[in-house]
């Protein structure tokens, strides 16, 4: 799964720590999601999408090659 979370976060001028606070996760978790080393659970993905007012598909894209 790839994502453009970093792009949305930067647009909102939030740091990883701020976004982590809003989602109730650590900064490292945000970093791991942004760099593609961790795929969030469905509830967290919904939470992320809801925070930015987007759908999950707008942020996360399934990459069958990965």
């Amino acid at each position: 799964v790839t994502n453009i979370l970093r792009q949305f976060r930067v647009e909102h001028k939030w740091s990883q720590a701020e976004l982590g606070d809003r989602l109730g996760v650590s900064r490292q978790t945000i970093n791991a999601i942004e760099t593609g080393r961790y795929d969030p659970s469905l509830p967290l993905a919904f939470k992320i999408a809801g925070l930015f007012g987007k759908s999950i598909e707008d942020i996360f894209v399934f990459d069958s090659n990965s």
Partner: protein
Amino acid sequence: MNKSTNHLESTNEIKRRKTNLRDGLAVGVILLAALLVGSAPQVDSVGPSMRDIAWAAISYVGVLALLLVSYLGYRRADERQKHIQLKAAAVTFLVVMLGLFTAEMLYALNGINLNSVIQILFIGSIVLWTMLQKLIEYRSR
């Protein structure tokens, strides 16, 4: 919302770490007290002394506290941290199973002091679990 940069930690993570540290210190004090009472009972034909009973009671409370703190730490972790903890716990479980089996075999062959080996196995499992968590966390950065 607190102002923070990419280099700082989220406030909920700071709170989680502080709580874990506080809990860990409390358990450390109990386990230290158990160590001060003694590292093994000296039971003779008369039976366990008050000191032995105190050692067993404090050790047991310490271990129960350690397990409770580990569980609470798991509950406080976010989903990625839980994933890491479970991964490390799975590997540790396998190592402990192997260690227990080996200890049992050696005991059956009358080659070891089971009390010492179980203590080493217990402490080793906590150390291994903690180190594996750090290693997995480091590798996923």
